[in-house]
């Protein structure tokens, strides 16, 4: 992908320098995998390993989560964070999960992330190589060449991007993305890339309760309780999740009953309520492609409507909406009056 080919060079340079100057003793970034699209988060110790460091439209993994463990180790770590990853980072700082001193953030520009599942969803099999040509992807497969529009296979969260600004960083490397990005940025607000994040939530709200129930049953019944959504979630920072803790009284390992599917996902949504930055990792990693972000976005939408606009992770001070209040907050019966049809 030429859009980022330049950027990755700049990133490597800076990382190299910072390592050599001893400002950091390791770097967390992404490593190339077996195929053209699989990228694995990796920690690089030596500066000559950095040749393996890669950055492109498939490096969607939010590295902030790893910093919770990494910052417990000795020395400062260099973290490559995309704009939206920095929201998670701030939230983790706010909740004392990361010691800011132990992390050096290299804020990197974002080329918009691609969703391999969406590409596969287009029936594209045997992917060998993906070429990017402005807004088109040219995909070489075992079964011949395929094409698809870039915006058709963007990661869900990128469709309603929070913006290009890093809310936390020690240094920025935006590279040549900046120009075309800023343009996009303006376009963003109205164009497809700036689509209303609550579009789907609103659709669901507009359904009848039975339709909503049917919708969520069919989605949640796919859940295999692999806990990928939870373990990848930067807001899930509990030492031991109540669902794993036998002493919590509600531990449950499998969805032995449909009730447990609901229970797990409702409680998870409420536990991250006001803390979820809408980074979209839960939906990205779900092997069953359950649109889990629609649960979190519902909560975010409610919070914005009831208690005023709030973006978790926008800063490190503001007290979250569920651990603060206003004396004239709406009464719960507002749900009886609004919130979907009767």
């Amino acid at each position, binding site marked *: 992908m030429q859009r980022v080919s330049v950027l990755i060079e700049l990133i490597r340079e800076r990382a190299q320098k910072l390592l050599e100057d001893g400002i950091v003793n390791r770097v967390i970034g992404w490593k190339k995998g*077996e195929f053209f699209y699989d990228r694995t988060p990796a920690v690089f110790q030596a500066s000559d390993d950095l040749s393996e460091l890669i950055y492109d439209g498939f490096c969607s993994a939010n590295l902030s989560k790893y910093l919770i463990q990494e910052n417990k180790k000795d020395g400062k770590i260099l973290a490559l964070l995309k704009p939206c990853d920095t929201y998670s980072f701030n939230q983790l700082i706010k909740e004392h999960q990361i010691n800011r001193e132990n992390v050096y953030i290299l804020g990197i520009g974002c080329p918009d992330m691609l969703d391999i599942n969406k590409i596969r969803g287009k029936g594209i099999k045997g992917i060998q190589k993906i070429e990017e040509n402005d807004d088109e992807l040219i995909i070489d497969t075992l079964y011949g060449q395929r094409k698809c529009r870039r915006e058709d296979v963007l990661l869900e969260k990128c469709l309603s991007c929070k913006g290009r600004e890093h809310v936390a960083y020690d240094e920025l490397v935006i590279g040549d993305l900046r120009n075309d990005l800023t343009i996009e940025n303006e376009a963003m607000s109205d164009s497809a890339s700036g689509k209303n994040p609550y579009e789907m939530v609103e659709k669901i709200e507009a359904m009848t309760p039975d339709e909503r129930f049917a919708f969520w049953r069919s989605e949640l019944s796919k859940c295999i309780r692999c806990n990928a959504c939870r373990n990848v979630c930067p807001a899930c920072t509990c030492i031991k999740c109540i669902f794993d803790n036998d002493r919590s009284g509600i531990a449950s390992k499998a969805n032995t009953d449909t009730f447990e599917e609901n229970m797990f996902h409702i409680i998870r949504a409420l536990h991250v309520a006001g803390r979820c930055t809408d980074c979209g990792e839960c939906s990205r990693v779900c092997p069953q492609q359950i649109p889990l972000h629609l649960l979190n976005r519902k909560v975010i939408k409610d919070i914005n409507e009831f208690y005023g606009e709030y973006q978790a992770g926008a800063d490190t001070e503001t007290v979250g909406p569920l651990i603060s209040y206003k004396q004239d907050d709406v009464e719960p019966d507002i749900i009886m009056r609004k919130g979907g049809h009767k």
Partner: protein
Amino acid sequence: MMFKINKDRWPELFSEISRDRELYMPIEKAGQIQFEKWNVDAKVRLDQLNTVKSPKDFFFPQSENIVAFKTKGKNISIFENHDESRPFVVFGVRGCDAASFKILDRVFLAEPVDTFYKTRRENATVITLSCNEPEETCFCSIFEIDPVDPAGDIETWVIDDVLYWKSITEKGHALTDDIKKLFEKADQQDEEKIYNHKEKVKDIISKLPLQNLNINEIFKNNSMLEIFNSSKWKELSQPCMGCGTCTFICPTCHCYDIRDFDTGHGIQRFRCWDSCMYSDFTRMSHGNPRSSQLERFRQRFMHKLVYYPENNDGAFACVGCGRCISRCPVSMNIVKVAKALGVKDDE
């Protein structure tokens, strides 16, 4: 004896099969393709290579009730209450998944036999389906699995909208006899068609990126301890988030947990899949013997690639279905592990 049936008559076939037994096959539901019970309006997707969850569910379900206790005053009554398994058919099982059943058999059918598993196996007729368009993530062939001749009670091929049907086992014959009337006999041309088809697919397979993985070399020529102590594990396990995705979608993972659920009226004891990636896996009074993700991560691959072969005449507990490769949230998978371990520390 080989039979064939045209696509337009498949619905007939399916309804005929499911007349006096349940028929499960790849069906699209909420955007995902899963093995689901067939019914008239089911959206059958025989073109799908891998379902997300493997068909191991049918014999070793994610959770199943074993026994229930009801206490009343001083006395306790016990009820066996796992659901009775009736004869059923699994249609469209790919070669890799079919091979996984054998791996599970070695565990559950070894003395003392797991009766729950056994009854289900006996009740099941497995209809395999040859692969047409292998994915880049496929590597079954390195485990000597033949995706175009997938072992099952009945083997089938789909070539330009015609389903070819060949029963192999007694069960297979029995089912076939039941529904023979729907089929036409396959002739010489058909045999050739199938032959060419196989050749074509084999050719693709030879081009697959993971073919060069020489797993035997890596694991048979290195001592267990050597592998166990490899310095590679640290780096390999680093990205692992300890979720259970790989274990739950894996056709050969078979660890489980036995748990009690207090229903308010008694205790429901059930068993459910467990994942060696979980921090509470095999937890004992003193905690998990594998306290770090590295150890837990290593355990999974040691089990699949070293311990299992050790106890099962060298057979790996992997069938190369490629599910973990495409589903792991951080793209860490058995192939990467194998390759990394293939490179000696000093190299």
